[in-house]
């Protein structure tokens, strides 16, 4: 039977996630059961505390605003336009609604019957993932685990982005590994190892299943030290339990597994569990040779390199490595750590090369400070340089000479870094600038001036310096400098208020997409500045909040929020959602930058998928709440 209307509903639904990935016959069933609701402007579809509907909704035409409650000044949670799904709560829990949906303008919405949709959801996990994403983008708690459990009570962990793993190289391991029975004596094991020139043996039980591993290290620690005699069974000195993996293990997974389990040997078994026979062994050495540009391989290469040319090549390889990490969905915390360590090592190497090229050794102690994103340990893509140099105080008559030495050194470092790929800072905030290459006392005076005689530019400067990181040189000088900065901010509410004001400079981006959609057929083809609009408010917010708690050792924005969550248990969930948002946005920016070979800062809205928009929107909501908190806590309102 022909059903023109259901066909039209189908045509519409299939354009939007999650319906775009539902099988055709299932989607037709859905379309045939949709209800179409017309909402005049201001019409309430459901209210906070209303009982659950039998449908969830997707906007066909017009706009629907989701608010905390129906009062005119209630906080806006989201604005939905064509293709946005909302009212998902009945799909996920049995509670009543926690928000109010009102037609912001005349709207037509499709109601998708839960009863028809649920069986399809059970089949299609990706659909569920999208809906959870969408649901949580409109709820306070961004941690989706709980809800995904509710949706998939009988399934195991969700396979996020499985297809991304296909790109990964499968690691080559040593096949037919040497094994030894658990009851064999240590001496026999040692003989077998030296005869076969191997560094390890897999210890197996009576059923030939792997139960442990014996390596050179075990001999060193347990036999040579006299702890055990050579006449005990190997099971006494073996390392266990053994970490077993499937043969489809990728290079990156292998690396991570080794780091996580603090072991240099992984056992490959038939099905990946320790309940099947060992078919191979994988050592750190395999990992290193299987990929020249692994993190540890690159680290070694950095230490061995002698010129900016070599380092430039390595820097490009770091970007390749980053790309792999990002598209494999490795947790961002791990990615940033690894990439930061590499960036740091690279900068250190550059300084060492520059020092080698100086005619003489530094006259006094000094330290090289990395500022900005590098200082916060969250620099992933290559950005502009932001750095400074501080040197020990010297008698007045020596000052000129010492300063001259460090300026020459700094200039060399800046030029080398530039050759490696880090552009010069357009504002010249670099150590080669005499203003950014000063003695300890000069720096202290400078900060005191910035903090006590604040104007807007000063706030900018001092903000940068709260995120500094000692990359090279003397620890004591740096500690003294940061102590003095922090003590200057104490008992200085005006400073915090002004810093708060500067953190609020960029208004919350919520509702931005709505505006964009309405004005699409005009001159409004702006790009979205993810750094200024989304990341900076979070970075600035973390800085001022952590400073107000007088914590100075944490520079990384996500870590700052995690620390804040510990410090203020009442706001724990909120701070964790901030930390999540920072990571999501950095990842988003990095992905975008890698895709378009840019810094990822400016995002072309048209090219975003619905899912990406949802992700962004979820972060925006956190940002606006953060700004509210700062406004109140640091009494910024009077200045706005």
């Amino acid at each position: 039977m022909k059903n023109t209307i259901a066909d039209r509903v189908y045509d519409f639904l299939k354009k939007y996630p999650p319906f775009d990935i539902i099988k055709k016959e299932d989607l037709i069933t859905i379309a045939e059961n949709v209800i179409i609701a017309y909402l005049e402007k201001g019409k309430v579809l459901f209210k906070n505390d209303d009982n659950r509907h039998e449908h969830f909704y997707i906007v066909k035409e017009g706009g629907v605003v989701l608010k905390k409650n129906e009062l005119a000044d209630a906080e806006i949670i989201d604005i939905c336009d064509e293709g946005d799904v909302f009212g998902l709560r009945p799909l996920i829990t049995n509670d009543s609604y926690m928000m109010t949906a009102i037609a912001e303008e005349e709207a037509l919405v499709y109601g998708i019957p839960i009863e028809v949709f649920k069986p399809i959801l059970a089949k299609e996990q990706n659909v569920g993932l999208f809906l959870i994403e969408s649901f949580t983008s409109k709820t306070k708690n961004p941690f989706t685990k709980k809800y995904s459990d509710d949706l998939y009570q009988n399934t195991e962990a969700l396979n996020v982005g499985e297809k991304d793993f296909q790109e990964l190289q499968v690691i080559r391991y040593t096949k037919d590994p040497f094994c030894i029975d658990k009851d064999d004596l240590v001496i026999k094991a040692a003989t077998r190892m030296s005869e076969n020139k191997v560094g390890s043996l897999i210890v197996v039980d009576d059923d030939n299943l792997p139960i442990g591993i014996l390596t050179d290290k075990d001999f060193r620690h347990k036999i040579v030290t006299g702890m055990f005699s050579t006449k005990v069974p190997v099971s006494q000195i073996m390392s266990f339990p053994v970490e077993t993996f499937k043969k489809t293990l990728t290079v990156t997974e292998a690396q991570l597994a080794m780091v996580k389990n603090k072991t240099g040997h992984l056992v490959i078994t038939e099905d990946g569990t320790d309940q099947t026979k060992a078919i191979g062994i994988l050592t750190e050495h395999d990992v290193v040779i299987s990929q020249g540009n692994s993190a540890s391989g690159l680290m070694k290469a950095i230490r061995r390199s002698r010129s900016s040319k070599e380092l430039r090549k390595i820097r490009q390889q770091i970007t390749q490595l980053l790309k792999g990490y990002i598209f494999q969905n490795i947790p961002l915390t791990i990615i940033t750590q690894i990439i930061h360590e590499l960036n740091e090592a690279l900068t250190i190497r550059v300084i060492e090369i520059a020092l080698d090229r100086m005619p003489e050794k530094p006259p006094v102690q000094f330290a090289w400070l990395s500022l900005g994103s590098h200082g916060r340990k969250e620099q992933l893509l290559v950005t502009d340089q932001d750095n400074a140099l501080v040197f020990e105080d010297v008698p007045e008559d020596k000052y000129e000479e010492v300063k001259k030495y460090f300026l020459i050194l700094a200039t060399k470092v800046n030029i080398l870094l530039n050759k490696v790929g880090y552009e010069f800072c357009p504002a010249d905030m670099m150590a080669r600038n005499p203003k950014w290459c000063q003695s300890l006392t000069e720096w202290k005076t400078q900060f005191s001036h910035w903090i006590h005689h604040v104007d807007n530019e000063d706030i900018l400067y001092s903000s940068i310096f709260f995120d500094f990181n000692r990359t090279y040189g003397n620890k004591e000088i740096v500690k003294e400098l940061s102590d003095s900065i922090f003590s200057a901010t104490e008992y200085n509410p005006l400073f915090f208020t002004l810093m708060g004001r500067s953190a609020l400079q960029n208004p919350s981006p919520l509702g931005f997409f709505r505006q964009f959609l309405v004005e699409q057929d005009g001159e409004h083809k702006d790009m979205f500045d993810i750094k200024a609009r989304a990341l900076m408010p979070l970075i600035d917010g973390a800085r001022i909040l952590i400073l107000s708690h007088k914590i100075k050792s944490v520079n990384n924005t996500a870590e700052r929020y995690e620390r804040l969550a510990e410090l203020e248990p009442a706001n724990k969930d909120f701070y964790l959602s901030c930390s999540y948002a920072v990571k999501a946005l950095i990842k988003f920016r990095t992905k975008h930058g890698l895709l378009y070979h840019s810094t990822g800062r400016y995002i072309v809205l048209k090219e975003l998928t619905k899912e990406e928009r949802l992700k962004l929107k979820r972060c925006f909501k956190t940002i606006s709440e953060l700004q509210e908190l700062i406004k109140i806590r640091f009494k910024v309102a009077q200045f706005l």
Partner: protein
Amino acid sequence: MRSWFKKKTKIKYPKFWNTYKSYFEKEELNIPLKDVTFVVFDTETTGFNYANDRVLSIGAVKVIGNIIDVKTSFEVYLDQTAFNPETVEIHGIMKNTKFEKIQETKALREFLAYTKDAVIVAHHVYFDITMMNKVLERNGLPPLLNRTLDTGYLFKKTKAINTLLKNDRGYSLDDVCKELNIPIKDRHTAAGDAMLTAQAFLKILARLKFKPESTLKSLIRK
């Protein structure tokens, strides 16, 4: 006089007509608007001549309380080859159609069972109702008993009609959709037009600004 009445009641109608008729036994004009069932419908015909042209398809949706349930939509294609006078040119869709076609009588029976005592809404309703009544007549049945509403007429009620504005004219479904911002799709299929008309009807109702407690009576009086 009495004998005239007797003669009338003597005509025996088929069961489906009597069932249909039974829905109209008590008429209720005081039901709240939000509870009224509207059947918004449209017909595709071979032309505009009531005597010679034929209904090719009927499409309809039910509107209850601002909601259209896709499940309750109605769409039939009629097999008109037997009735076609040679003078009538049949549209392309007719000849090559790949959908199931049913006999006029069956279509009629299904339409009456679907519509019951609902208020019938159509754009330029007089035309579609007359075409349907011709079908009934050919099948030896009296005309439709339903109350009818015309979206063309109702639409004009939403506007300030003024000779200076030169807007006292007929409004086609295209005009109405354009003014009400309804994206036009599937124009000139019965179901597609019924859907467009239903959207127009909902938007017009909103613009007529009924009170929440308004009843069908206030709409009929417009």
